[in-house]
């Protein structure tokens, strides 16, 4: 059944503007960058699939992790080519890092961060967190006005990705560069040495991959068509509230980030 023919889907409300242009542009730019960086990063990892802690680490030192090379479905390019993997990686790293910087500054300036992402007292109440986890576990997604707000789990994961994971990836990436080691020696030392930086970079990349999987699954379960349209065009159709549903906490009036 097509959406237009489904009375339940069309009846409730006209689409609302959910995501700002800056958010949508950043989202898809970053999605592309993360795809290229993850796959080309695994291609680079394949050149020496061992990880160490500390300043040095090479074949005769003891790695904390030693893996087989990632297969051709995982790496960019699909056949082993360290030089080309690096070209992809280092070009898109620039795009990711500067897009992130611009988005952070812009989101602070237009109050996207304080309005939509910042955790509020109500979010941090144990009862709220417990209910959100229970709702997620039962795949019971918010409807009505509550669907326009980020819940505590969404906020926490978006904050973790934007303000922790992506910056950690950027800075540990830089910490591996011998040129940056001379320019900003504190960067490598703060990472615990070049090999620690490489290990942290690898772990953070897989945490980002884990976020990607959960993110995709959640989008699929919550209504992929509506979610995708929201992130592409900005327009989002609010799912009708269930009878008797509590409409979020009712604490805030402003709902979607696109609202004035």
């Amino acid at each position: 059944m097509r959406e237009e023919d489904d009375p339940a889907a069309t009846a409730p409300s006209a689409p609302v503007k959910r995501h700002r242009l800056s958010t949508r542009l950043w989202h898809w730019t970053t999605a592309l960058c993360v795809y290229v960086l993850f796959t080309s990063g695994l291609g680079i990892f394949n050149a020496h699939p061992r990880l160490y802690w500390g300043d040095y680490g090479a074949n005769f030192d003891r790695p904390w992790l030693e893996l087989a090379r990632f297969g051709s479905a995982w790496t960019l390019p699909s056949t082993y080519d360290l030089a080309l993997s690096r070209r992809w990686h280092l070009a898109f790293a620039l795009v990711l890092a500067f897009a992130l910087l611009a988005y952070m500054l812009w989101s602070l300036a237009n109050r996207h961060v304080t309005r939509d992402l910042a955790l509020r007292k109500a979010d941090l109440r144990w009862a709220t967190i417990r209910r959100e986890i229970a709702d997620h576990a039962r795949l019971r997604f918010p409807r009505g006005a509550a669907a326009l707000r980020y819940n505590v789990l969404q906020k926490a994961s978006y904050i973790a990705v934007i303000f922790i994971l992506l910056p950690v990836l950027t800075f540990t990436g830089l910490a591996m560069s011998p040129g940056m080691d001379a320019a900003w020696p504190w960067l490598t030392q703060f990472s615990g040495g070049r090999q620690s930086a490489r290990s942290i970079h690898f772990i953070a990349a897989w945490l980002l991959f884990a976020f990607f999987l959960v993110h995709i699954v959640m989008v699929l379960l919550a209504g992929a068509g509506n979610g995708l349209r929201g992130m592409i065009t900005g327009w989002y159709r609010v799912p009708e509230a269930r009878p008797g549903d509590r409409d979020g906490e009712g604490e805030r009036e402003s709902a979607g980030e696109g609202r004035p």
Partner: protein
Amino acid sequence: MTSPLSRRALLSGLTVGAAGMLAGCDRLGRDEDFRKALFSAENMHKWLQRSLQDRDALAREFRPDQRSPFFRGNGTLNPGTPAYAALWRNGFVDWRLRVDGLVGRPLSLSLAQLQAMPQRVQTTRHDCVEGWSAIGTWRGVPLATVLDAAALSTRARYLVFHCMDDMGGGVDYYESIDLVDAFHPQTILALALNDALLPVRNGAPLRLRVERQLGYKHAKYLSRIEAVADLSAVRGGHGGFWEDVAGYDWYAGI
């Protein structure tokens, strides 16, 4: 589900999409114009790093007790040619380092002459493009000293390092750096590693150390330093063996 797309369609779409992305990116990676755009990021990194670095900013130096227990070799572990074997058998007394090209006073330096010049000792981290690192103590002659002795011409922009290791089909390894790195205090022609003469696997009798760049720039088994005005006429034109044959970045600071 009220979505126009079913979950299964989306999941298989994702799988097909990922395969398609990869195939598309693979194809892009072979396209000449796209490669040109992709490879231009190197210039951006070089510009950013050179802007953030002091010209003489030093790579971190370590204490001798922080060294790797074993400093591995990589790439060529022994040039293996009869000519190299003959030099090695004689303790490299017949070996000479030629310094020529755009210089006022071409040089031919013996090992003893290089040993007699002022030396710099530095314990630094060697960062391989493959991802591993090793820390070792190098001793050698600052490249600046040799270039001054050779009266480097003001027309010179790059130093090309010619090596004795045959990379196959009679093609010797080579590398190049610009004057910023050539006159950097940590850029030395290393004669010794960890308080002993350079082992064969690490580039005996002489190798370059250019500490703010990745390992492949640190040419081993040196035989000649050539000063040039530009790199396009040298060998494959990209400034180094791996740059020519595999598309590695010429600027290896990242």
